[in-house]
């Protein structure tokens, strides 16, 4: 029971991070391998501001989100848009964007290590909290609630507003949505920026209960990618379920076998997905 709830709480935050990457890959068609670094930036900001001025990470999140949005928008416009324009097909864009975002990821790690080379250790809301007779750390629950809140707002925006519908249209087909008068470059930039902001907020939340350091971003990129592939690219419902599954399995392995094996567990799931359901949990087989 303890494992299940902890796993679900962790999965909630994972879902938020995967949501961010899903917007970037599903709508903007950029396989952003620097995604994890933005998560770490969120964590670093939370740590920094908390240690310096004792401002709560939740406040930090509100400051960081617009900054990350703007930063990602600039990155898309300046660095990634030229690649989209130069690519002859989707395959070439994928290769180029993978290499370019690797470059960004290493550059960001390099910069962050020079800012703070050690673990981002701080303690926020590390108090016990009781759910049906079991105790959990309050920070995990707060992070989960905020993840659900942010995810809910985004979901509402995507499914019940006009710009949200335009964005979903772009994710279905870039060409067709251009034909019906959607400004595809603008929507892609918006999706990329929004995805980056969501991931950064996820990083701020996750840093309240997991201690990160500057070079750990790639692990979270991996996890987000595994979740997206398991859920099916662009499928938000699938990603949420996949994130909860990953959170559950990781927590189970960490508690029952060894905390060092969480990555191996994630890989085991990944292999199973690739072998049996490469189109995602709810995806249909391509004809």
């Amino acid at each position, binding site marked *: 029971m303890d494992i299940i709830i902890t796993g679900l709480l962790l999965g909630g935050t994972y879902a938020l991070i995967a949501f961010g990457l899903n917007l970037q890959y599903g709508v903007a068609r950029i396989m952003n391998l620097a995604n994890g670094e933005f998560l770490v930036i969120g964590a670093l900001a939370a740590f920094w501001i908390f240690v310096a001025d004792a401002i709560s990470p939740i406040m930090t999140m509100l400051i960081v989100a617009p900054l990350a949005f703007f930063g990602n928008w600039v990155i898309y416009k300046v*660095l990634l848009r030229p690649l989209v324009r130069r690519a002859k097909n989707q395959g070439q864009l994928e290769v180029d964007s993978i290499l370019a975002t*690797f470059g960004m990821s290493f550059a960001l790690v390099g910069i962050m290590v*020079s800012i703070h080379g050690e673990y981002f250790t701080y303690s926020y809301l590390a108090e016990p909290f009781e759910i049906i007779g079991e105790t959990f750390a309050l920070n995990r629950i707060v992070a989960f609630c905020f993840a659900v809140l942010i995810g809910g707002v985004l979901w509402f925006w995507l499914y019940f507003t006009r710009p949200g519908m335009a964005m979903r249209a772009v994710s279905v087909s870039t060409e067709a949505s251009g034909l019906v008068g959607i400004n595809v470059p603008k929507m892609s930039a918006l999706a990329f920026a929004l995805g980056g902001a969501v991931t950064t907020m996820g990083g701020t939340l996750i840093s309240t209960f997991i201690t990160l350091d500057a070079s750990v971003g*790639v692990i979270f990129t991996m996890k987000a990618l595994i979740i997206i592939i398991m859920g099916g690219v662009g499928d938000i419902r699938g990603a949420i379920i996949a994130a909860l599954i990953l959170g559950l399995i990781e927590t189970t392995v960490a508690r029952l076998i060894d905390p060092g094996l969480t*990555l191996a567990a994630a890989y085991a799931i990944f292999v199973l997905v690739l072998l049996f359901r490469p189109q995602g949990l709810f995806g249909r087989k391509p004809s």
Partner: protein
Amino acid sequence: MSRDANISSLVWAGVLLLLAACVPLVANGYWMSIALTIAMFTVLSTSWALFSGPTHYISLATAAFFGVGGYLVGTGMSDYNLGFWTMVAIAPLVGAVLAFLIGIATLRLSGVYFVIFTLGLAEMIRTLVSWIQNNFTGSRGLYVLTDLTETDIYLYLIILAAVVYLVGWWVNRSRLGFALRIIGNDETVARHVGINTAMSKVILFTFSGFVAALVGALIAPRYTYIEPNGVFSPELSFIVVIMALLGGTGRLWGPIVGVIPFALLQEFINANYSNYSTLVLGIAFLVIVYFLPHGVVGRIEQVVSRRRRSTW
């Protein structure tokens, strides 16, 4: 390419390799160790480019195979008292089997899945190996004690480089190489003209896994002390990719054009500004994508062909 040009490129490669084999005669300890690093990366990035060059599938698994090779030599010699050469024979086979299995699982699907899978592979194997060591075998570090000098290892690697070049030359002329180039241009077309795309990719990927594990095994005596955290360093995969792309993967000898300057640059950075090595890797990637998409060799060929057209 005509037959004559083919033979002459082979002769040139032979002459260069002979020259490379003479380096130990003039180099002292410091430069010998740099030459060894260059030889190691030459083999790794050339065999990487054999697979990733024509297909555009970016493999980040080099560090995993390299680590498996080095680690097997370490554990074989320290834990099971096997000889160095026995392990050198076993390691590449294990690397090849591993690459084959990974290839079967991921290369049937689109390239993104493959990149993602190889991205965390070295790290995953490292955590797995550390866990097995901590819980079952006990020892943390492994010793590889041989009487091989850096010069010996260097010469073995040069021989291996020659073998890789020969295989690459042969593949480029074979039906397999032709199939790979078609896959790289358009995978759907390749499938429709009846190429077994998955199998062609798996064969080449298996070969690159074999070579990377063999390099890891051969170079293990250089480090004497093998530790999972050291041999499975994920950075190695990225360095190999940068070197190969910097040189250019369009030609068999392209990667080495990137290996030599980048290895020297890294040596310089690590000696003087070691805090910035990650940043340098990042900038190198960005420079390649934005300024040298076909590598130095591709850029030179572009300039040459443009000049020829303008003079005629």
